[in-house]
C-alpha cells in the first residue's frame, strides 16, 4: 500500500498520467464542441484512428509538425463528411457516426497496406517521427523548487501543453466570444439563433469540423508520442471513452479536463498496479477505470441532486 502511495505521488507517475490523458483530453474536447452544437459525435473513435494513421504516414516524409497538421486536416475532413451527410442529406447523425467508424477501421488498414506495400498490421516498416517533448530543465536553476518543477513539468509532449492551452482557449471561445455564444445557442435551441439570422447549419458544420480536427489531434498524440507508429485499431476504444468523458465532465471544458485526467489517472494506475500487486487478477485491474467512472458519475449525479434538494429545503 505504501508503495502504491509512493508511486502515485511520484513525478514519474504524474508524467504518465499526463501522457495517457492527453489523447483522451483532445478527443474529449472534440466531443464537447460537437455536443454543445447539438450533434452527438459518436465518430470520435474513427476520427482519432484516421488521425493516428495520417500523422504516422505524413511524418515519414515531413517534419513532425506538418504531420500533426495533416492529421488535423484529415480529422476536419471527416468532420466535413459528417456535416455533409447529416446537415445536407439529413442522415441521422448517429448512423453517420457509426459509418465513419466502420470506414476508419477498414480504411486505415487499407491505406496502411498501400503506404507500406503490403503491411496490414503495423507501420513498423515506416520510419515515422515523434512529437518532441518539451524540455524545461532550465527551470532547475530556480532555487528550492527548481528540481521538483523540472521533474513534474519537463518531458511532456508539446501536445500536452497544447491540450492544456486548448482547454483554456475553448473555454474562452465558448464563454467569452460571440461565436461561442452562437455555438451554445445553436446546440440548446436552434430556432433562436436561426431567427437571429445566425447560419445555424454553418455553425454545426464548423463544430463538426473542429470536433474531427481535435479528435484527430488526439490521434496524432497517440501515434506520435504515446506510441510512435501505427497499428490497426490502436485507439482501442479511447474515442468512446472520450464520448463518455464529455458527459461526465458536465459538458464543460474544465469538466472535460477533469474527466480525462480521471481516466488517465486510473489507466496509469492500472498499468503500474500489476507490478505492485501481482495477486490481483489482470482483468479486475483493467476494470478499475470503468468502475471508477460509473462511481464518479453516480456520485456527481447524487451530489447534484442533493444540492438541488438542499436549496429547496433551506428556503422553506
Amino acid at each position, binding site marked *: 500500500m505504501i508503495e502504491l502511495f509512493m508511486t502515485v505521488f511520484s513525478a514519474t507517475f504524474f508524467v504518465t498520467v499526463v501522457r495517457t490523458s492527453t489523447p483522451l483530453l483532445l478527443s474529449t474536447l472534440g466531443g464537447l464542441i460537437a455536443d454543445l452544437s447539438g450533434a452527438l459525435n459518436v465518430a470520435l473513435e474513427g476520427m482519432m484512428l484516421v488521425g493516428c494513421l495520417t500523422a504516422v504516414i505524413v511524418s515519414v516524409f515531413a517534419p513532425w509538425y506538418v504531420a500533426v497538421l495533416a492529421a488535423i486536416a484529415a480529422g476536419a475532413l471527416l468532420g466535413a463528411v459528417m456535416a455533409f451527410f447529416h446537415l445536407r442529406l439529413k442522415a441521422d447523425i448517429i448512423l453517420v457516426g457509426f459509418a465513419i467508424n466502420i470506414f476508419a477501421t477498414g480504411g486505415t488498414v487499407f491505406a496502411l497496406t498501400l503506404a507500406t506495400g503490403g503491411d496490414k498490421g503495423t507501420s513498423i516498416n515506416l520510419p515515422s517521427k515523434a512529437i518532441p517533448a518539451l524540455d524545461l530543465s532550465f527551470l532547475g536553476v530556480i532555487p528550492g523548487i527548481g528540481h521538483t518543477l523540472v521533474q513534474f513539468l519537463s518531458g511532456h509532449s508539446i501536445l500536452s501543453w497544447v491540450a492544456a492551452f486548448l482547454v483554456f482557449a475553448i473555454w474562452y471561445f465558448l464563454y*467569452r*466570444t*460571440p461565436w*461561442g*455564444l*452562437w455555438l*451554445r*445557442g445553436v446546440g*440548446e*435551441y436552434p*430556432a*433562436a*439563433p*436561426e*431567427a*437571429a*439570422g*445566425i*447560419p445555424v447549419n454553418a455553425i454545426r458544420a464548423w463544430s463538426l469540423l473542429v470536433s474531427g480536427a481535435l479528435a484527430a489531434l488526439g490521434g496524432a498524440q497517440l501515434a506520435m508520442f504515446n506510441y510512435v507508429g501505427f497499428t490497426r485499431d490502436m485507439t482501442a476504444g479511447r474515442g468512446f471513452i472520450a464520448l463518455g468523458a464529455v458527459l461526465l465532465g458536465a459538458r464543460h471544458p474544465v469538466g472535460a479536463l477533469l474527466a480525462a485526467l480521471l481516466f488517465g489517472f486510473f489507466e496509469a494506475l492500472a498499468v503500474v498496479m500489476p507490478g505492485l500487486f501481482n495477486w490481483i487478477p489482470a482483468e479486475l485491474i483493467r476494470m478499475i477505470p470503468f468502475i471508477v467512472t460509473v462511481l464518479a458519475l453516480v456520485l456527481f449525479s447524487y451530489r447534484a441532486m442533493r444540492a*438541488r434538494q438542499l*436549496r*429547496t*429545503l*433551506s*428556503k*422553506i
Partner: protein
Amino acid sequence: MTPLLQAIDIGKTYPGGVVANDGVNLTINAGEVHAVVGENGAGKSTLMKILFGIERPDRGTLLLDGKPVSFTNPREAIDAGIGMVFQHFSLVPSFSVYENVVLGSEPRTGVRFDRQQAIEAVRALSEKFRLSVDPLPPVGQLPVGQQQRVEILKALYRDARILILDEPTAVLAPQEVEELFVAVRALVEQGRTVIFIAHKLPEVLEISDRITVMRAGKSVGEVAASEVTEKSLATMMVGREVALRVDRAANQGALTCEIKALKVTGENGTTLVDDLNLRVHAGEIVGLVGVEGNGQSELLEAVAGLRPIADGVAYLNGRSLTSLSILERRAAGLASIPEDRLARGLATGASVAENLVATRLDDKRYVRNGLLDLKAIKANAETLIERFSIRVGGPGAAVGTLSGGNMQKVVVARELSEQPKLLLVNQPTRGVDLGATQFIWRSLTDARDAGAAILLSSADLSELLALADRLVVLYRGKIVAAFVNSDDLTPETLGTYMLGIATQTPAEMQGALR
C-alpha cells in the same frame, strides 16, 4: 406614396401539400400598426415567415420601398430592417436576457464579446421604448410577458423598421397587453412600423390602424380599424356570425372542493401560494384572476398533484387529496386542462386516440389485465372527435399534425369526456381562434351545468368575466380580493387588485368566499 412593404399574390404550399397561402395581398404603409387577423390555420404565420425570410414563397412578389426583394434567410430580412417576434418564442432558455437580445449582432472588443456594452445597450433600449426588463437573469426563468419584451428588444436592437408581432398578446395579462400597446405606440411615434397578429378582436381594434383579414390562405379584405366593429370583423373572418356570449350558472350545488391554508413552494424554495383558503361548489365556475406568475398555475398544479403541497390541505368531496397519486385524484373525479398543451397536455407524436385515453390507462373499459382494448379506445376517440368536432383525419392521426385550436380541443375533449366533479382549467383558449373559443366556452359551461365544480385561470380577463360565477384575485400567492361576478364588475376594478394596489379586507371578501 409608395407603401413601405407590399406582398402581392403570395402563394405557398408546404411539402405535405398544405396550401397555406393562396394569393395573399398585403400592403403596409410606413408608420402604421397593421393588423392581420384570421382563424387558426388561415396562413397568417406562414405569410409572416415569408416576409422574414424563413419560408420562401412559391409565387408572388415582395416589394420593400417599391423595390422587389426576396429573402433567402432571416439575416437578409434583418439587414433590410425587418424584425419578427414569433408566435412560439425563439429564445435560448439558459442564456441571459442581454445575451438573447444581442445574439447574432454582439458588440465586440477584438474577439471578445463585450458583455458590459451589451448590457448597457439593452438597458438603454428598454428605457427608450419603455419596455422594462432586467438584462441579467436567464430568460428561462422569466414570465412570458417579460420574454415577449425580450423578443421585441431583440428586433429593436437590430434596428428593425418593420416589426412583426405574431400573436404577441395571446400569453399576456391585460396589464401586460396595455404595456405592450404603450410600447407599440412608442415605436410608431419613433417612426417604426408594426405588423400585428391577434385573435382577440378588441385588442386588434384598439391598437391597429388598418386590418387585413385572411381566410383559408387568401386575403379577403383590408379595412381601416375605425370603420369596423368587432362583430363585422368577426363575420369577415369566419364567413358567418359569431356570438361569444355565455350564461352564468343558474343554480349551484354542494361544496365540492375545499382548499384550506394551502401553501406551495417552488423548486428554489420561494413561496408561490401562501395560506390560501377557497371553496368551490358543484355547478359553479370560480375564476382565478391575477397577473401571470402570482400563483394561479401553481395552485392548480398542486391540487392536480403535479406539484407537492408544502402545507395545508385540499379536499375533494370531503376527501383529502394530499396523499393521493395523480391517478387516484383522477379516479376521485378530478380533471385538469393544463396551461401549456404542447409541453404538458399532449404527446404530439402519439395518435389522437392514444392521447384521448392517456389519463385512463387503469380504466377497465380501455385496459384489461394490462392489455389495451383497441376497439374501445378507437370508439372512444370517434365519439369524442364527433362530439367535440375535432377536425382530424381519424383517430390514428398524430396529434402533432393538428392545428393549435384542434389540439386544444383534444385536451378539452379528454378532460370533459367523463363528467368531472372538479375541473381545473388553465388558459383554455390561448392562441385559439374565435370559432374554437366559442366551442370550448360552451363545453365548459355544459360541464358546469352538469354539476362540475370548475376552477378557471386565464390571462384573458374578458374570458374570466364571461365565464366565472365568482372571481378571486391572487397577488403574490395570496387572495387579495373576491367578487361575485356581475355586469358591474369591470376589468379596471380587477386590475387595481391584480397589481397589488388595493386589497380587500377579510370582511369585504366574506360575501364572495362562501
